[in-house]
């Protein structure tokens, strides 16, 4: 294998890996901190992509339009997420009713999907990349699309930002404390409800951000919901439920491995995420560790 081919596949794998990470990040955060398996994560991702097409259609396929979508869509989605958390999910924490959480997030996903079809129709949409992001660079004979590089950089920045929020701020400290003992924190006078709403909203915003970032990569369709949700679960389970660093490593590893498997056996490549997940779970099992890590430990 030549260096150029190696780098081409590496870049493709990193691009895929970071897109996978973005599809999983919101789901992972909400699980890690709140213990809510958000089945609406795929729908939120799809919604983010569709909303990006609206913003870009109005502002234009310019760098400004794309940046605006990158900021505006997650903020709007987070606001919607906050509302959904207050109205639907808040009452379920105290009862630790995971069945109710499952049903509520499932209903939420149906509502979002139905809303998208109602507003945008069942057809697909496309958005152009701004000229500055649509080219590519040549590195040692390999081709690195500018947008792939942007996705990688954004992925690193988002991970750093989440890490910084969790470990460098008082809100992060309280969030981690809430994972350990919500009742104790409440007794100390912290508004845990507000904290939980904030985390859920942030997770939803993160999911929508993934959709915005993915939108220029291809056709924006209602199929994005499933296309995002299944890999997101694989990444989250592989990386360790709630473990953001683990999710990043898992997503990038899956992307890169899949890319190189494509080179040797393209027919088997789509099975890579499942194979990696099985291997990781088996390794955990053989090492005597729980297959699904303890949430409190994972979030730290």
């Amino acid at each position: 294998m030549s260096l150029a081919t190696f780098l081409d596949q590496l870049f493709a794998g990193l691009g895929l890996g970071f897109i996978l990470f973005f599809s999983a990040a919101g789901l992972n955060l909400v699980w890690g901190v709140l213990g809510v398996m958000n089945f609406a994560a795929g729908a939120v991702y799809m919604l983010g992509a569709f909303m990006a097409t609206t913003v870009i259609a109005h502002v234009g396929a310019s760098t400004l339009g794309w940046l605006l979508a990158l900021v505006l869509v997650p903020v709007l989605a987070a606001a919607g997420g906050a509302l959904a958390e207050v109205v639907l999910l808040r009452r379920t924490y105290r009862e630790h009713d995971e069945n109710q959480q499952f049903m509520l997030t499932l209903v939420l996903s149906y509502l979002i999907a139905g809303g998208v079809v109602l507003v945008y129709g069942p057809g697909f949409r496309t958005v152009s990349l701004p000229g500055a992001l649509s080219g590519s660079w040549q590195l040692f004979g390999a081709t690195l699309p500018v947008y792939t590089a942007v996705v990688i950089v954004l992925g690193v920045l988002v991970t750093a930002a989440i890490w910084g929020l969790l470990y460098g701020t008082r809100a992060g400290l309280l969030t981690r404390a809430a994972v350990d003992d919500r009742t104790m924190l409440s007794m100390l006078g912290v508004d845990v409800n507000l904290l939980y709403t904030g985390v859920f909203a942030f997770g939803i915003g993160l999911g929508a951000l993934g959709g915005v970032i993915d939108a220029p990569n291809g056709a924006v369709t209602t199929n994005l919901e499933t296309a995002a949700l299944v890999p997101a679960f694989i990444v989250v389970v592989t990386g360790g439920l709630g473990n953001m660093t683990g999710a990043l490593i898992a997503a990038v590893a899956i992307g890169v491995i899949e890319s190189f498997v494509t080179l040797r056996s393209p027919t088997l490549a789509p099975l890579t995420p499942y194979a990696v997940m099985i291997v990781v779970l088996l390794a955990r099992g053989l090492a005597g560790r729980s297959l699904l890590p303890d949430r409190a430990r994972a979030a730290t």
Partner: protein
Amino acid sequence: MVGKHAVSSRTLLVCALVSVLGVTGAGCGSSKSKATTAASGSPIKVGYLASLTGFCAAFSQDYVKGAQQAVKTINAEGGVMGHPLQLLVRDDKAEPNVGVSQARDLVLSEHVGFLAGTCTSAVGKSVARLVANPSHVLYTVGVADPTVFTGGGYVFATIPTAEVEGANAAAYVRAHPQWKTVAVISEDYSYGFEVTAAFRKGMKGSSQKIVSQEYVPSGASSYASYISKLVAEKPDVTYSTVIAEDTITFVKQAFPLGLFKATQLFGILDYGTIDPMPKPPVGALGYTYYPSASIYHTALSEKLDPLGTEVANSGAAGDGFNQIEMIAQGIEKAHSTEPPAVRAALDGATVQMVQGSEKIHSCNNLTAVPIAMGPVVAATKELPFAHFSPIELVDTNKYFTC
């Protein structure tokens, strides 16, 4: 493509939402109220299956619009033997069990004798089994799986099957001996497997070498690793049957990775997909077996014009239109609304379609519609969307052995 016809598609959108929410589609079907019924007899009901949600939802609105347009024009011209057509649209969600359930309900509750539509072979195959004896319901559909159709059966095709498509692609590649190496990239489901098998069969004995074969996951968000592999292999030509919205994702990602500089792309490029591309693959060699109105200059292609340039050229609208026309013409030929009589009348008949006069082959009920081929060019003043120019219309009769 989406969003410019919001008013006319409002009913469909509501039905799709109702379907998404899991409520059965009462009142979500008929276009009768829109038809200008010059005909006065009792209506002839036609059940129309459309994948308004799920895989290929993106194109199913256009199928329905085409079918509705056929009903509208037929009824405006006096209907069929004095009877107006009544279209009952149902969402099959691109799932065989849902399609069968909807078809069964249309037959048992609505008493339809004629069914049409769906965009997936999986649904088409299941519904084809349902309409086999003893129900005697005639079904017209445009899907690529050849096993859906059998001579003497009640299922009639409006597009070539994957066998014809693959054979034609192989003949085209063989006609270009300067292409010494060939890569094939296909969808990883039945359509992709069948068309690839037919292509490989057609390439047997050729000195041209197939250097790679890739099956890409349908609906994936990234094809970059497959594209990078093709760029590294630098085949003289890449035969692609990546279809529908996956084409858009594939082409969008192919540009920055330099695919179009590394190889000549040849393959299915329906107008319905190259039109909405922000940057169409100008110079790629495309083909389509769907009847986009601007390709043909026939009496029926002109009847698609009221749908607007975009929908009329989507291909899906033309196919939906043809499915209804075939039923209407079969009834006229049979002088009967009884499906067995209509089936007998269509057996080996020549029917008028958007593409022109086309023969239905008796051995398999396939209509030998042409395949339009040509290099992709950018939008022009006359044709304000990416299209083929010049266009070669391939007579597919030569691929029939019966």
